[in-house]
């Protein structure tokens, strides 16, 4: 134990920390436990063991369709927010012009704006424009919300790039694009990947924007899950939830591998 903590204070700190760890894990573990419960109603404590709810979920057309839609939407969102966010990050780090700070503030502003209101405002404009395609509307809405995440991670990693290496490449005759591709990009790759992964995860889980722009034909996973939660009382909802939890965990482990979690989030 660190010499920073000693005596009674240390016990208080460790007790609260342990309690919070249990608090954080409890709902997730419970959902997973209930999903293998061999009972037609969700009860505590869970009884028996079965995987039948997983078979039921994996045969559920609505859920699978929502899954497919959500993954496609999240992929499109990732591509879109990287295409907009990476060049913009470059401008913010390398540019030197009047109003740079203001532009940065503007580009990051969707982060502090309540997403619920972002979605509502967008719905009003898209309706006015007559845009009926829920898929396109969702894509636009999700990119608005996720692109600032890309800015945050890419700007951080760009600030760490050694510009002397770029100069060396230039001196040796590489043009700007080639320099970017072979020298700069490898150095910011983890930041770009983290930003992309963030965009994917935020899009996949987004409710407050999705709720306004989806329609009955195109309902991504969070909406379907919310609907099921109200209407279905067997453990297929915990089974769906567990599938989503496991997917999320893979995402987190990837993020941890790519950049280290603290750095990815603290930026």
């Amino acid at each position, binding site marked *: 134990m*660190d010499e*920073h*903590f000693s*005596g009674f*204070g240390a016990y208080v*700190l460790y007790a*609260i*920390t342990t309690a*919070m*760890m249990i*608090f*954080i*894990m*409890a*709902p*997730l573990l*419970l959902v997973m436990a209930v999903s293998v419960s061999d009972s037609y109603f*969700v009860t*505590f404590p869970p009884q028996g063991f079965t995987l039948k709810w997983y078979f039921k979920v994996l045969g559920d057309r609505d859920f699978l369709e929502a899954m497919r839609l959500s993954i496609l939407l999240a992929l499109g969102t990732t591509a879109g927010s990287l295409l*907009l966010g990476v*060049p*913009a990050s470059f*401008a913010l780090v390398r*540019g030197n012009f009047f109003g740079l700070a203001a*532009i940065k503030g*503007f*580009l990051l*502003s969707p982060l*502090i*704006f*309540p997403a*619920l209101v*972002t979605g509502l*405002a*967008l719905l*009003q*404009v898209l309706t006015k424009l007559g845009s009926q395609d829920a898929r396109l509307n969702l894509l636009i809405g999700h*990119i*608005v919300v996720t*692109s600032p995440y890309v800015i945050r991670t890419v700007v951080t990693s760009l*600030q*760490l790039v*050694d*510009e002397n290496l*770029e*100069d060396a490449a*230039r001196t040796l005759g590489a043009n700007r694009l080639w320099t970017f591709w072979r020298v700069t990009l490898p150095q910011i790759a983890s930041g770009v990947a983290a930003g992309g992964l963030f965009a994917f995860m935020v899009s*996949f889980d987004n*409710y407050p924007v999705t709720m306004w722009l989806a329609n009955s034909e195109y309902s991504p*996973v*969070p909406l379907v*899950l*919310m609907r099921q939660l109200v209407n279905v009382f067997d453990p297929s909802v915990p089974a769906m*939830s567990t599938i*989503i*939890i496991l997917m999320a965990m893979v*995402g*987190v482990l990837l993020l941890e591998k790519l950049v280290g979690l603290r750095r990815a*989030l*603290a930026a």
Partner: protein
Amino acid sequence: MTSDDAVAVVGAPPETRQGSRWRLNLPAGLLALPMLAFLAYFFFYPAIRLLFSSIQTQNSQGIIGPPFTLAHYARLIDVELYARVFWTTLRISLITSALATLLAYPVALVMVKSRPLVTRIITLIVIAPLVVSVVVRGYGWQLILANGPKGMLNWILMTLHIVDGPVSVLYTEKAVVIGSLHVFFPMMVLPLASALGKIDRNLEDAARVLGAPWWKVFLRVTLPLSMPGFVAGFTLVFSLTAGSFVIPAILGGASAIMLGNLIEQQIFVVYDWPFGAAIAVVLVGVVFAVNGFSMWLLEGRRLRRPS
């Protein structure tokens, strides 16, 4: 160690950064244009429009236009039900951020000052749920807090004979606070841990050597120096809770409706766009006020120096 230090080590000194680099400043700036244009059209413009429709009138065909009026805002104050939703939202957000602060300090301290393995485990546990769908987490709490003897909390309490009959937590403000605390707790821990990690440990050691007990070291040295992290975290948790929809919808039921749920109801159920827009503007106003205040605190460096 921190990314700031890394910038100092790796980055070139300011004068060479400005100097004869191959990059041109203006073209570099142009790279921001696509995103600027995108956000201007799909974020900024819609927000302005929303603001406008909140002071306009909706006719019987559902078309929004003049005359201009502040009636929708007045309604939010005058109608007791709506005013109550407003105060409920503020109360839940405030209690959630206060609780998050109290509980995040110990966690962040342990996270920053423990052995690497402990730090890593705590970090993973704090962050992992962040990527799990909020709907799933709300559902988990619904199962734990479920009213009646089948809920996990009640089962535990009754098995341990702490209570005789089941307690009712689900569909109350308490449930919403618990769920929001769960969802937004990382937003408090991470800035706090980052602020605590930047504190020069010599300062704390000095206080200790001079005979201060641990709580005095914390109160007089650590706490004041961690204020930037606290302000950032508090602002984040407050803003996110105030603007949330899913957790109150799942855990609050009819008795703890928040502004977000009221907006959704006004638009999707009542089709009252101007009123829905007005509530949204009020929500944004509250969030911006809190953010502005914390920015003022942080940028004025009013918090950096321990008194």
